[in-house]
C-alpha cells in the first residue's frame, strides 16, 4: 500500500516537475530565438540527420500500403480507389505517427543521451558557473529544432509514401492501376483540411517529443546507468504518448 502510494507520488512529482520544466523552456524561447546559429546547428543534428530514415521508411510504408490496399480492394473490384486508400491512410495517420515514432527513436534518444551526458560530465553546472543559462543555451535550441523539424519530416514522409517512389510505384507501375485514376481519386477525396490536420498532429507530437527528451536528459541521474535509463524512457514515453495523443487528436478532429 505504502509502495503504491510512493509510485503514485513519484509519478505526480515527475509530471509536476516536467510541467514546470516546460514552462521554464517556454519562457526561455524568446531568448533562444535571438541565437539562430545554435538552432541551426540543432536543426542539422535533429532534422537533416533524420532525413534518410524518414525518406526510406516513407517509401516502404507507401509500398506496403499499396500492396495491402490492392489485395483488399480487389475483392470489392475497387482498385481504382487505391490512390485515395494510400493517401488518406498516410496523410491522416501514418505520416504523423510513424514519423513521430521514428523521430523519437532517432533524435529524441540522441538528445536525451547528449543532455544527460552533459549533465553527468558537469558541463551544465560549468555553464551555470560561468553565468550561462543552460536552459537558454542548450535546452531551448534543441526544443525549437524538434518543433520545426517534425512537421517538415512528416510532410516529406507523406510525399515519399504517396508519390512516384512510394505508393505510385507499386500501385501504378507494378499493379497496373491507371495513373490518372490514382491521382484523380486522391484529388477527389483528400481535402485541404486533411493536410492541415496532419500538420497540427505532427506539431503536437513535436512538442511532446521535444519536451520528454530534454526533460529526461536534463533530469537524468548523472551516471552512465542514469543516462542509459533516460535514453530508454525517452523512447518508451515518447512512443506511448504519441499513440495516446494521436487517438485524442483524431477523436477531436473527427467529423
Amino acid at each position, binding site marked *: 500500500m505504502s509502495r503504491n502510494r510512493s509510485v503514485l507520488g513519484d509519478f505526480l512529482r515527475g509530471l509536476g516537475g516536467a510541467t514546470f520544466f516546460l514552462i521554464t523552456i517556454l519562457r526561455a524561447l524568446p531568448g533562444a530565438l535571438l541565437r539562430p546559429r545554435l538552432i541551426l546547428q540543432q536543426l542539422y543534428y535533429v532534422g537533416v540527420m533524420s532525413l534518410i530514415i524518414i525518406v526510406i521508411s516513407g517509401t516502404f510504408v507507401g509500398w506496403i500500403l499499396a500492396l495491402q490496399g490492392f489485395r483488399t480492394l480487389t475483392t470489392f473490384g475497387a482498385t481504382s*480507389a487505391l490512390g485515395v486508400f494510400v*493517401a488518406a491512410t498516410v496523410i491522416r495517420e501514418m505520416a504523423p505517427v510513424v514519423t513521430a515514432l521514428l523521430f523519437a527513436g532517432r533524435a529524441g534518444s540522441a538528445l536525451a543521451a547528449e543532455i544527460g551526458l552533459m549533465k553527468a560530465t558537469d558541463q551544465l553546472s560549468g555553464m551555470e558557473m560561468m553565468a550561462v543559462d543552460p536552459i537558454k543555451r542548450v535546452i531551448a535550441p534543441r526544443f525549437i529544432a524538434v518543433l520545426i523539424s517534425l512537421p*517538415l519530416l512528416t510532410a516529406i514522409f*507523406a*510525399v515519399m509514401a504517396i508519390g512516384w517512389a512510394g505508393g505510385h510505384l507499386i500501385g501504378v507501375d507494378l499493379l497496373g492501376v491507371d495513373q490518372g485514376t490514382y491521382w484523380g481519386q486522391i484529388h477527389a477525396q483528400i481535402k485541404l483540411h486533411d493536410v492541415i490536420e496532419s500538420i497540427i498532429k505532427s506539431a503536437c507530437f513535436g512538442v511532446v517529443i521535444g519536451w520528454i527528451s530534454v526533460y529526461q536528459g536534463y533530469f537524468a541521474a548523472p551516471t552512465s546507468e542514469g543516462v542509459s535509463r533516460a535514453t530508454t524512457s525517452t523512447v518508451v514515453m515518447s512512443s506511448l504518448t504519441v499513440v495516446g495523443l494521436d487517438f485524442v487528436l483524431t477523436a477531436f478532429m473527427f467529423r
Partner: protein
Amino acid sequence: MQSRALEILVGFFVCIGVAAVFVLTFRVASQDHVGSGGIYEVTAKFDNIGALTRGAAVKMAGVKIGSVKGISIDPKTFQAVVAIDIDKTRNDIPLDSTAKIMTAGLLGEQYIGLEPGGDDQSLQNGSEIKFTQSAFILENIIGQLLVSMTQKGKDSDSPAPAPANAPAPAPAPATAPAAKAAPAK
C-alpha cells in the same frame, strides 16, 4: 562541421520540407473553389438526396462544373432544396436540364450530374432546375423486393399468418456501401 556546409544542409532540409508541404497542399489535396472566374447559384429540389453533402461535386458529362453550396429543406413540400454553385464560364446550360444524384465509382461519394436539355434559355443566377431525379436508395428497393416476394409466397402457400412487413427493415448498415455500389442509372 564547417558552418557554411551546415547552413547549406539545413537550408536544403527546410526547403524540401516546405516543398513537401506545398506538394501535399496543392498537388494532393483538392482546392475548394472551381475555376477562377466566379460562380452563379441555382437551386434544385429533390425528394431524397441520399448521402449528398455540402461541397459535393456538380458534374456535366463527367466534368466538374460546380459544387453543392448548401442543403436545406422546403418547409411546405418537405423536399430537400440543394443550392448549387456553378462556374460562371458555364453560363449556357439549358434551363430545362435535369439534375440527378449519382454515385462516383464503387465507394465514391454522391454527386449531382446535370444532363442538358434543349431549351433556348439558359440557367442564370437564382433560377431553379425543375427536373430532378432523387438518389437511388438500395434499402428501399430491397425492402420492396422482399415485400413482393413474401406477398407472392402468401398467395401460393397456405394462408399462414406471415407478417408481410416483417422483412422490410432488413438492410443493416452493412449494406450501406453496397447501396452506393449500384449507380442510379
